[in-house]
Every structure is written in C-alpha cells, then in structure tokens.
C-alpha cells in the first residue's frame, strides 16, 4: 500500500489519541486555578478540597498527555521529513518556543502541584496551579499557531532552494487564523473539562456519596459548561467558519456537502453526501442560513464544490461532512443541556432533577467527540494540502521510509496505546471510586 496512507493514518491516530488528554487538562487547569483561587478566600477550604481531587485527575491525564505528545514531536521528522525540511525554518520557531516557554514551565511545576502542597504551602501551591494554567495555555497557543500556518500560511517567503523562509515573525506568530483557532480550541477544552467536572458531580449525587463536594463540582461545571459551550459556538466558532468561508471556500463547500454554487445557500442539518453523483441524499435543509453564517447576509453567493477544480477538493468529503455536522450538532446539544442545568441550578432544583443529573453524568463523552470531530474537520478540510495552497500532503512524507516500516510503527503505537488506554481507565476509575472527601491525608491503598 501507498506509504502516504500509513503516514497519514499514523499521524491522525496518534494525534487524535493524544488530544484526548490535553483537551481535558487545558480546561481543567483553568478550573483548578479558579478552585484554588476561591480556596484562598476565608472559609474557602472546601474549594481547596475540591481542587485536590481534580489535581489528582489532572495529574494522571497530564502524564498521559505528555507521553502521547512525545511521539508527535518526533513524527515531524520521522514520518514527515520532507515537510520538516520544507517548512522547518518557519514552524521550527513555534515548536521551539513551545519547548522553551511552555514545557519548561509545566514540567517544572507539575510535581509541585500534584505532590508538593505541604512543601510549598498554600500560596506556593496556588502559584503552581497558575503555572500549570499559564504553561498549558501557552503550549496550546504555539501548537495552534503551527497548525494555523498550515491552514492559512502568513509571514513566510519562498527561499531560493524552494523551501519556506520566515519573512515576518510577527505576522507568522499573530496569524489572524491562529487567534480565531486558538480561541475556539481553548474554549472547547473548557467545555470538555466543565462537562467532566459536572458529570462526576452528578454521579456522586445520584449515588448519594460525597454530596458536599458533588454540589461544588456541579456548580462550577454547569456554570463554566454553559459559558464555554455558548462561546465555543458564538463568537469563536462563528468567526472560524467565516475565516474558512473567506480563505478556504472549497473546504466550506465540502464540509456542507454543497456541490452547486448559488445565493440563499441552505444549511444541511442532516443528509448523506453522494460524492460520485454530486448530490445530497435525503437532505433536511434550511434556506439562506449557510449564506448568513458564512458572510452575514442571507442572499450571499456561497460557492459549491463544482466551482473548484477537482484536484483542489478535500480527498475525504464524506468524512469531512460528517465530522463537521457531528461537531456542530453535539455543540448545540451541549448548549441546550448546560442551559437547562443552569436554569435548574439557579432555581436551586438541580439536585432533585434526577433525569437531568443522569443526562449530565452521561453527557461527558460528547465534548470529547465534538472536539475530535472539530479537529477532523480542520485537518480533512485542509486536504489535499499540507500547507494550504503551497504544498501537497503527499509531498511531505519521508522519502526513504517505506510502507513496511511505517506500518510496523503504526502497529506498535496501536498496541502501546491500547495498554495506555486500559491503564488510564483503571487509574481514573480508582480515583473517582475513591472520591474527593478523603483528600490528601488518605492512603491510596
């Protein structure tokens, strides 16, 4: 089989798996910092207890984020060597900055946050939670900026040897695409963290265990979940969609399964794209909405795929279409659920609304699925390019690494990651079963 397939498969698999962990830890770092800050007020000790529980969950997730992140750093060179040579003078900047500005900060203070509360005291521990929040959010910026360069390259020039050179550092670092993508991505990670915190709170309340802590988890989870799931759609998701419409119209057409151009473009709520026949089967559509979302007016002309040469079309239109719709659909569901929960919370009735608690408990996978689908949308929408408009994906693979070797390491990752997944479920399960109340003092025997 074509080695490009295995290189793409391996990167997609390891990146998707990796991002299950940072999407929680980045959002959770913010919530832990909030809890630690609330815990510093007089009488706030209960928030400190809550933070202690979530720091344990954070520590396990963070460790897995680190170990699944290491392969990603190497894979630029191992599997995508031609691309690394082509773009290293540009994206080497953000990847290098991530190490220097973010990873050192996170790695130096992780152990202080997880194990060092007694050693450094309340103020030092609060500072450690700030360090992890700032470090992980900086890390997010550098990696999103690297991705944004692939989606919409800025600040570069073509060097005489045909590779990319950095022409304008600030234009590269503050790529408008990066700022929109960063806001959308980080808020999405808050959605994940908030729903996980709320789900654990709901679980404890339904079981009648750790009621005091559970109320706290629900409060912070539902409030943060509502705020974040609204902001992830508007303005950040909206802004992202408008950038796609402006700079990558062919990707927008594929995301919507839109084959023909025209004004009053409809949004497709559900339907099955038939790419060979260039039509949508069983469509449920709302007229004019896509025009409005893309350009702000109902009558705008939104180009369809037929407006572009076929060699510019994303190469997996079906999956791209479903990924985008799953993200948008689940995002809507999360707004409704957290909105309902917030209303009941404000009325003081959330604790007694058992069906709602059940829904909150079972909803925690949805932000993970929505976020994964969002990244699939971004990355499949970028195809057939590795760097949009400049460099095609198949040009980027390591020229001398053949399929047999690439498949060997792919299988190796599959095995290793199954083991990591089992470990993760086992350790997190123990922590949740153990519960928050016993806190730091308890033995974990």
């Amino acid at each position: 089989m074509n080695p490009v397939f295995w290189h793409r498969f391996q990167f997609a698999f390891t990146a998707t798996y990796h991002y299950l962990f940072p999407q929680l830890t980045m959002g959770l770092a913010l919530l832990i910092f909030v809890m630690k800050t609330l815990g510093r007020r007089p009488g706030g000790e209960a928030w400190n207890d809550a933070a202690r529980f979530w720091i344990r969950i954070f520590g396990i997730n963070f460790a897995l984020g680190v170990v699944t992140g290491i392969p990603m750093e190497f894979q630029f060179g191992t599997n995508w060597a031609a691309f690394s040579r082509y773009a290293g003078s540009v994206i080497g900047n953000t990847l290098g900055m991530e190490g220097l500005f973010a990873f050192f900060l996170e790695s130096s203070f992780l152990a202080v946050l997880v194990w060092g509360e007694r050693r450094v005291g309340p103020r030092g521990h609060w500072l450690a939670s700030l360090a992890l929040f700032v470090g992980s959010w900086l890390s997010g910026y550098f990696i999103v900026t690297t991705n944004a360069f692939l989606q919409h390259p800025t600040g570069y020039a073509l060097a005489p040897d045909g590779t990319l050179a950095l022409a304008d550092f600030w234009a590269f670092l503050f790529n408008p695409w990066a700022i929109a993508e960063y806001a959308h991505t980080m808020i999405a990670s808050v959605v994940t963290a908030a729903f996980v915190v709320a789900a654990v709170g709901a679980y404890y309340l339904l079981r009648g265990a750790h009621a005091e802590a559970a109320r706290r988890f629900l409060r912070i989870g539902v409030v943060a979940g509502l705020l974040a799931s609204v902001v992830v759609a508007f303005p950040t998701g909206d802004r992202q969609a408008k950038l796609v419409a402006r700079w990558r119209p062919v990707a927008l057409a594929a995301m919507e399964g839109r084959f023909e151009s025209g004004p009053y473009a409809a949004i497709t709520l559900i339907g099955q794209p038939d790419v060979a026949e260039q039509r949508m089967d069983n469509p449920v559509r709302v007229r004019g909405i896509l025009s409005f979302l893309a350009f702000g007016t109902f009558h705008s002309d939104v180009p369809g795929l037929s407006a572009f040469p076929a060699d510019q079309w994303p190469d997996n239109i079906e999956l791209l279409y479903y990924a985008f719709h799953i993200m948008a659909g689940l995002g809507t569901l999360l707004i409704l659920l957290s909105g309902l929960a917030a209303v009941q919370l404000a009325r003081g009735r959330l604790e007694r609304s058992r069906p709602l608690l059940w829904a909150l408990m079972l909803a925690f996978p949805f932000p993970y699925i929505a976020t994964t689908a969002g990244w699939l949308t971004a990355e499949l929408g970028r195809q057939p390019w590795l760097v949009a408009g400049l460099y095609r994906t198949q040009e980027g693979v390591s020229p001398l690494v053949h399929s047999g070797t690439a498949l060997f390491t792919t299988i190796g990752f599959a095995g290793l990651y199954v083991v990591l997944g089992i470990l993760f479920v086992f350790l997190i399960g123990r922590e949740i079963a153990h519960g928050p109340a016993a806190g730091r003092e308890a033995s974990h025997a």
Partner: protein
Amino acid sequence: MRELWFAIVAVMFTAYVVLDGYDLGAGALHLFVARTGDERRHVLAAVGPFWDANEVWLLAAGGALFVAFPRVLAAGLSGFYLAIFLVIWCLVLRAVAIEFRSHVADDLWRHFWDVVFAVASALLAILFGAAIGNVIRGLPLDRDGWFALTLFTSFGTAPPVGILDWYTVLTGVFALVALVGHGAVFLVWRTGGAVAERARRVAGVAFAVLAVLWVVVTAATAAVNPELFGALGHRPLAWLGLLLAVGGLATVITGIRGNRPLASFLGSSAWIAGMLIATAACLFPVLLRAIPDPGLSITVANGGNTAEGLRPALGWWAVGFPIALVYFVVLFRIHRGKAVAAREGEGY
C-alpha cells in the same frame, strides 16, 4: 549566526544529557541499589520532581535543531527511523512507570513498573550513545541529503552500515556506563542510608570501568573517524572540553573516595559536558557526516535556515532560555536538601 546556532544546539543537547542523564542512570541502576519498597521510593523521591523538566531539554534542543537546521532534523529522524521509535517507546513507558508506579499499593504492580523503569532507562542510555556513535562514524547521505539506516547490517563500520555496528554498540555501552556512574553519584548526593551507600559502591566501579573504556573508545574513534582528531590541533574549545572532562573525572574519583557527594556529582556533570563539548567542537562545522563521500555532509552552511531567518529565533531564544534557567533554580530550591521517601499516597 548559523555558527552561533550550532553552539546553541550543542549547549542544549549537552544540558539534556547532563540533566536527564542522572535520572536515566538512576533508573538503570535502581533495581540494584534500592532493594526494598521504601528504598525504591527513596530513589523516586530523588528523581521524581525533576525527570520531566530534565526531559524537556530534549524537546527544547530538538526545537532549536528544527528551526536552525531543518535538514538535519529531517534527515536524522527519518534516517534513524526504527531507532527513533525505540527511543519514543522507551520514553513513553519510562514516563508511565515513574508517574503511575506509586498510584497502586501492590507489590506486583510496583515491581512490574520498577523493571520497566530500569530497562527503558538503560536502553535509552545505550541508544543515545549509539546515536552519537553514528554521527561520529558517518552516515550514507545521498545527493538529496537523505539516508535510511536499518537497525543492523553486518556490524561492520564500512558501508553498507546499520545503526548498530561494533563501534556504535561500543559508544552505546560507554554512554550507559557513564550515565550509570552519573546517576550513582546523583543518588549518593541526594539520598542517604543504604541507597546512598550502595550507590557509592556502584559509582566507584562505574567510573573505574569508564576510565578504561574511555581509552578503548578513543582508540576506536581514531580508527573510525581519523579526521575528528585531526581537528583537535586547531580547536581550542575542544581542548577546553577535554580539560573539563579530565578535571571532572579526577574530581569524581577523588570525590567518591573522599566522600564529597556534591563535588562528585558536579565532577561527573563536568566530565559529560566536557566530552560532549569536545566532540561538538571537533565535528564543527559538520552536523551529519556523510560516508563514503564527505562532500555530501550536512554542515552549518547547508543545514537549511539562513542567518536572516534565524534572527527572530535568536530573539525568542534569548528571552526563553534565561526563563527556563530560573525555573530550574526555583525547582532546585523547592526540593533542596536530601530527598526523603514519600509516605503512601503522598508522592512518587
């Protein structure tokens, strides 16, 4: 500018080997110096708060290499493909072992992860040593600046070469002994009691073996890459590195005998840093030496980026590097004094 980046990359990789080196070494030998559960925790208490930050030096050095010499990163990582994946899997398993070992109070669970920690640490030391051996021996770069090495061929140093041959296996073993010694003096300095006493004995043996191996490796290197020593004549920095290495080694050996743990650790650090500085100074300006045609080597001149392109990178590096050093000072201040094994559920 590109020459400066050669130095920056060399300094960052050296920092990585000196810092992560002691926790790799401690990992490789902990089964022998720490026998009981409490003793194992004593070792983990000494390296636990530091290993992750130490390992970031590898990623940060890789980032500097990426931006300054993308052709080197691209050719090197894809050319050593399978060895790099061994490195990745060892890094992953080792991190999991350190982080998750103490989460479950069960002897079987802990013993399993202790063995994983030891094997992965030892294998990483050997692989890193073999990597340096490969760079010194030379790589079969083609006209486009690519190479692909299988893990082994005939174990000879003449083309077609593999990643492992008699010379690179020798440098791998050399690195393992050096890091075991380094880890041992670290444990003498940071722990106490039975662990420190056993580590002191290991260190004595390791550095004696190392002194002998050094002679062997030097002779082997002269046979495999004679030009390397030819450069010594006009590289004062290489002499400085060698002086540092010799002084460091003398300090360790007398430090172990005279029971001066901090001096031994600093001596061991100086030894490693001196050796790497001398090697880098002799290799300069070559980053990846090509065999059999040295004209195909990747050097600072054709490594990828330009002086102009590296100016902004020097800007962020000059801001970020001192900040990283401050974190290390803070980290060491927080964990100053001898490490104490954590109680159940309270630490590594």
